[in-house]
């Protein structure tokens, strides 16, 4: 029996391996010795008998470019250590945390505090830190971006809010661009979302929830892209990453910007891909099951799809869950690469903040442990190629974060073992006890999911090992 943090040694792993860095996929045997991938042997012929993509899966450790570990300031909801444990349970070995802590990570001392907590936890899960764009995340004046860059931050974000003043956003893109770092924008026009509860559309209308317009996101996306277009002419290194993009309209803007050659990337969350707004009404079918043949959302009231009680506050999230047609657009973006990455937007909350009236509940879903199973459900349904899912969980986010962070997902001989072993055929039930996160605010509580993480190795060390394996 090994313990968390032990050097992985003497392991022979056999299964369906995917190395998105090398573009290779197939039956493989991987020998781990003294923390390193001593040998990666791609099997064929009789050696590969019984090894298929639906059995044991071996992929590089997953990378999350967007999570909230709540430390410092809200350790009741999550700590760096509990966040690392949750990440490892979800198959993630590198996690970039957002700076909307208390105080915000808007100066190097707070970043150092988060790093120190990560080092002290004993978990080998690598914690990267995003710095705030503006002082105190107030959107008014720039945070010390250069000092934060010297302290090793992975990017800059005021996540939880957009950088809603266009001039500040432009300055941040230019300044961060010269430092070689991306600005990660949470696109939201606050003038359209005051008091908003659910995405505009049929479900919000029927349930009497205040509508959250699509334009609140797509308008902010369009503006951020247009601001970038001006900046990048003067500062070629400027990079914009749009996080938790959730609508077809936003993705259309992103596609246009990419076609125009602008340095824009984006991520989508597992919940915006797999859950539709009809879940708030009590539906529990996957979003791709809620789309009619013509692409429009089906009617859960007519379908008899409302199997749970409505208004589960665990479903309150920013941006809100969208109609199934938008979820389908997010899935399509994963399939064709318009979305570069899956970001979990893991947002743990306490009962006090979450087990309250729907409209008063804090925004967010504790999702880093269910992300892989949720996306694998789309793979199981034939909606997403397995290799694309793995790319969007590994090399996709690693490219956004940049080489300088040292996150290079792959299965390369001689390098430290950084991988996850997943039993795709096995199932697990999401319960408060099964979640390592302190945040039990998952709308999937009680649900059985396919895809069990058996082993997570990070940087050559054991980050998670399933007791049953």
């Amino acid at each position, binding site marked *: 029996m090994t313990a968390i943090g032990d050097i992985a040694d003497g392991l022979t792993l056999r299964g369906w391996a995917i190395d998105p860095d090398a573009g290779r996929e197939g039956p493989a045997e991987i020998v781990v010795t003294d923390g390193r991938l001593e040998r990666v042997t791609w099997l064929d012929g009789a050696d590969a008998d019984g090894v298929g993509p639906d059995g044991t899966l071996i992929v590089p450790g997953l990378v999350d470019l967007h999570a909230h570990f709540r430390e410092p300031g809200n350790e009741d909801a999550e700590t760096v250590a509990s966040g690392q444990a949750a990440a490892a349970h979800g198959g993630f070995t590198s996690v970039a945390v957002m700076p909307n802590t208390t105080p915000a990570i808007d100066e190097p001392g707070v970043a150092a505090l988060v790093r120190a907590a990560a080092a002290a936890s004993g978990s080998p899960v690598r914690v990267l830190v995003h710095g705030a764009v503006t002082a105190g995340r107030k959107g008014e004046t720039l945070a010390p971006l250069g000092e934060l860059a010297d302290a090793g931050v992975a990017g800059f974000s005021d996540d939880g809010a957009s950088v809603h003043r266009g001039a500040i956003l432009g300055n941040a893109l230019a300044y961060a661009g010269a430092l070689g770092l991306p600005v990660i924008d949470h696109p939201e026009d606050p003038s359209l979302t005051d008091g908003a*509860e659910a995405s505009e559309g049929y479900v919000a209308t029927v*349930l*009497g*929830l*205040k509508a959250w317009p699509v334009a609140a996101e797509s308008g902010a996306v369009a503006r951020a892209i247009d601001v970038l277009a001006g900046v990048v002419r003067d500062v070629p290194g400027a990079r914009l990453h749009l996080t938790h993009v959730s609508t077809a309209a936003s993705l259309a803007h992103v596609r246009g910007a990419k076609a125009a050659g602008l340095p824009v990337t984006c991520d989508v969350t597992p919940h915006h891909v797999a859950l539709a707004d009809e879940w708030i009404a009590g539906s529990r079918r996957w979003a791709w099951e809620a789309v009619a043949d013509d692409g429009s959302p089906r009617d859960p009231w*007519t379908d008899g799809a409302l199997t749970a009680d*409505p*208004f589960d506050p665990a479903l309150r999230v920013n941006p809100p869950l969208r109609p199934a047609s938008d979820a389908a657009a997010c899935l399509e973006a994963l399939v064709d690469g318009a979305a570069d990455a899956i970001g979990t937007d893991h947002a743990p909350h306490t009962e006090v903040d979450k087990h*309250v009236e*729907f409209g008063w509940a804090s925004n967010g879903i504790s999702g880093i442990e269910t992300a892989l199973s949720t996306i694998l459900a789309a793979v199981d349904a034939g909606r997403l190629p397995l290799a694309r899912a793995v790319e969007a969980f590994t090399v996709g986010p690693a490219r956004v974060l940049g080489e300088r962070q040292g996150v290079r997902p792959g299965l390369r001989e001689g390098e430290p073992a950084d991988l996850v072993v997943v039993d795709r055929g096995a199932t697990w039930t999401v319960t408060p006890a099964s979640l390592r996160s302190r945040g039990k605010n998952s709308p999937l509580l009680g649900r059985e999911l396919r895809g069990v993480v058996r082993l997570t190795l990070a940087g050559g060390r054991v980050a998670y090992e399933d007791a049953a394996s």
Partner: protein
Amino acid sequence: MTTATASVPAVDAPPETQPVAWRHRHLLDVDGLGPAELELVMGTTDAMREVLARPIPKVPALRGTNVTILFYEASTRTRVSFEVAAKNLSCDVVNIAASASSVSKGESLVDTVRTIEALGAHMLVMRHGVSGAPYLAAEVFGGSVLNGGDGWHAHPSQALLDLYTLRSRLPGGSLEGRKVVILGDVLHSRVARSNVWSLTAMGADLWLCGPSTLLRGFDAWAARGAAGRRFTATSDPDEALRDADVVMALRIQRERMASGLLPSLREYAARYGLTQERLRRAKPDVVIMHPGPMNEGVEIAPDVAVDPRSVITDQVTNGVAVRMALLYLLAGARQRAGGGG
């Protein structure tokens, strides 16, 4: 399907002894009620009307049942109506106005509901400004929760008293094919939303009408129907009122101007106010309704409110009978399920 001809219950007797086909422990919305269940509520309300007509309008049916009325929003008619209804059934009633309780000290709804249960409540009638709040209460409360209005979402007892009032007014007692118009601030109205479910379930030709800012989204809902039941949404009051059998005006709140949804009350009154002139488009014997409280001279002209065709005071009277029926049916379902009390 349960029988739609449920005989009028002998409401003097304890409810669990009645062979009624009511299976709901809570009443949180009307979207799940089918025609047979609506008929059962109507039939039970008839029996309660009979009780109310007695010299002493009180029966011992729910003696020993503790009802707590928890209102987070100001209300006169709904709160008092529930209180009178509960007392007519011999319940013991506790009233909690949220501003006068621990709620104003920051106590959560979940803790408040647990406290109310610990104090012995069997039934909880609640009003809350946030859509869906009664579902949270029902999740933690061991007894029955009756939604007295939540946010913009639902107001089941109002929809049921509207239905009862209409059936007693319309010739033949049927809404089948009758043109019913709900006029006003549909967007923010839990009354309108609940009536969409109950009136369409009974076959009414329902029209929702209001300024386009206060009708956002309802076109899309109308196009899909309510679980297959169609209605019409329009911002044209003349089209809506043409040959209407029933028109219900909704209250306009002043904060709609501040949030930029309407230019002015004056403009609203001129374009959508229910006046005698506008009513001439409707059938001569049109039934006039309003859930109250009214802004006379804004959404309804004073002479329309007191017109002989107005049933606004009937709505209030019937409200007591309907709420008696609901308390009675819920108590029966709870007790048959072994809920005690």
